[in-house]
Structure formats: C-alpha cells, structure tokens
C-alpha cells in the first residue's frame, strides 16, 4: 500500500484516518470551549446561507419561516467550518500543484460534451435536488456519513445506504454510454 498517490496526493486511507482523528478532537474541543458537543456536518450551513440571502430581500418572510427559525439563521461554528473547507482545499492544492481550473470534468465531458452551459445546468439542478434530499434526511455525507456512522446511529446507516445506492443507479444510467 502506497502512502502517496501518483499525483502527489495522500493515500485515502491515511487522509481519511486523519479526518477520523480530527472528528474526535473536534467533538472534544467543541464540548470544552463551546459547552456543547458539535459534530462535523455541512448541509445545515446551506440553509443558513439561504436564509441570510433571502433576508436581504424579504426579511419578514425569513423571520416568519418555521424552518429558518428552527435552524437559526446566523454565521455559526458550522458555517465557518464549511468556509474553512474552501481555504483548506485551496492551501492543500496550491502547495502541491494539484490546483487546476476546470470548467467541465472529464467524466461529464465524455458523456455530455465540452459545453459549459450544459454542465452548469446539470450542476445547478443536481445541487437543488441533492440539497432538498439532504435537508429531508437531516444530513449529508458529512453529518450522516461521517458523524452519524461514527456514533453508530441507525438513521445514518440507512441514509448512507440510500445516498450511495441511489447514486450508483442514477450514475450508472447517466454516464454509461449505450452499448458499452
């Protein structure tokens, strides 16, 4: 087993294990310093971002919304964590030269061609559906997939199986060329 990949990345086993350590340190640190155990997650932040944006246009509507009130529209620990992911990936990729401007990913291009417009529409619509699902399931591959699985939560086992199972079926239909 190699610790480095051909393009200078780290073995996914190593990088993943380090995220496991980070998750442990993070639950400990949040409990100590914030008085409440916080688990790694990402999708609730999109609700808060949506609320912050909608509030600039229709503040009363956001204030009256049951879901926004429940999730509390504010820039909290998780919001900063999600922003941090951007900076962490930026630092990692620019220091090992894996940073690359990409408008259409290879797998997509093979099936749907080099059109940026098509990719943009796909990414946008897919993003809408994915987030609707993540909020309905109350978690994404971070909240359910990592944090929930680490706690042996029943809901997370089933959610992760649904995420991946449906993803396999849909990706299989979508990206495999007919006849191959």
């Amino acid at each position, binding site marked *: 087993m190699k610790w480095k*990949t051909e393009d200078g*990345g*780290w073995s*996914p086993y190593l*990088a993943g294990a380090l*995220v*496991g350590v*980070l*998750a*442990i340190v993070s*639950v*400990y640190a949040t409990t100590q*310093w914030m008085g409440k155990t916080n688990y790694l997650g*990402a999708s609730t932040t999109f609700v808060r*971002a*949506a609320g912050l944006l909608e509030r600039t246009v229709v503040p009363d509507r956001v204030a009256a*919304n049951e*879901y926004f009130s429940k999730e509390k529209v504010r820039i909290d*620990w998780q919001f*900063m*964590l999600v*922003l941090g992911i*951007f*900076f*962490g*990936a*930026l630092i990692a990729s620019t220091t090992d030269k*894996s*940073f*690359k401007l990409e408008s259409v*990913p290879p797998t997509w291009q093979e099936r749907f061609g080099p059109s940026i417009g098509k*990719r*943009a*529409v796909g*990414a*946008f619509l897919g*993003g*809408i559906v*994915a987030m*609707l*699902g993540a*909020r309905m*399931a109350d978690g*994404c*591959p971070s909240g*359910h*997939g*990592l944090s*929930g699985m*680490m706690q*042996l*939560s029943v809901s997370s086992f*089933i*959610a992760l*199986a649904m995420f*991946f199972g*449906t993803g396999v079926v849909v*990706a*299989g239909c979508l990206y*495999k060329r007919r006849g191959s």
Partner: protein
Amino acid sequence: MSIDQLLGLITGILFGFFLQKGRVVRFDKQVGAMLLKDMTIVKFMLSAILVGMVGIQLLADASIIALSHKAMNLGGILVGGALFGCGWAVTGFCPGTSLGALGEGRWHAVFAIAGMVVGATVYAECYPFFKSTILAWKNFGKIGLAEVFGISPWLIIPIFWAGIIWLFVWFERKNL
C-alpha cells in the same frame, strides 16, 4: 470573530486540507465511486469512520461528550436519501466537498453550490408541506444501533472493523 467561529474555521481548514489531500473533493472521484470504478472516496470515508467511532465511543463512555443521533424518521431518511442520491449523481458534489472542489480550482462547483442554496430555500419554503406529509409517516426517534440490538457498542465496533478491513483488502485486490 467569536471563539465558536474561530474553532469552526480552524476545523474546516484542516478538514478541507485532508479532503483535498485524499483527492476526494473532485467530480470524477465522486462519480467514479458511483460508477463503481474508483473507490477512493469510499476508502476515505470508511477510514475516517473506523478511527472516529473508537474515539467518539470512548469519549461518550467517559461522559466527556454527548452522543447526538439524528432521528430515524422513515420518510425523511428514505425519500430524502433517495433524492440526495439522484442529485448527487448529476451534480457530482456533496455539500461539504463542493466548497473543497471550488478551493482546488474546479470552478464549475459554483453552479452546484448555487443550486444547493436554492434547494435549501425551496426546502425552507416547503417545510410545512414536508412536515405534514413525508416527515409525518413514522418517526422511530434518535436511536443507536447498540440500543436496537441491546448489546454493547464495543461488540459492534470490532465486527464493523473486521468487515471494513475485509472490504479494503478486496478493493486493493481488485484495484478499485
């Protein structure tokens, strides 16, 4: 910046760093796993879970932290999980990795992020409807695997480890 926000930012930077180093944030790795051709993200996730579950269970046993299961809401998990899978296959990013993909220059992730913000708005606006329909089917509450089987989590963890290590060996043999 408050201590909460600072702590979140530092945790997020490390999280994003490891995600990018593991090469799991990009579209081709995410879709590669769904096409069962490249198991990088599966290896990454399961490795994180194996390590994390031991530490978190130890801290919970020592009453240093509190476990926080997400509710086993049947409709939410099944319908939401399936919707997520459909959208994930098309957009090629999950909420966390979309920001990471943007960070490593895969700028088409902005369309995915914009879609996710719109999706969150739609969900918030339609929440009363979902609450009275899909989310109202059956809620088993915040349950853990150990309570359901009535056994110690320390019996489940070694079984889980053994199963996953076996899977890793199989991945390496098949060059996945």
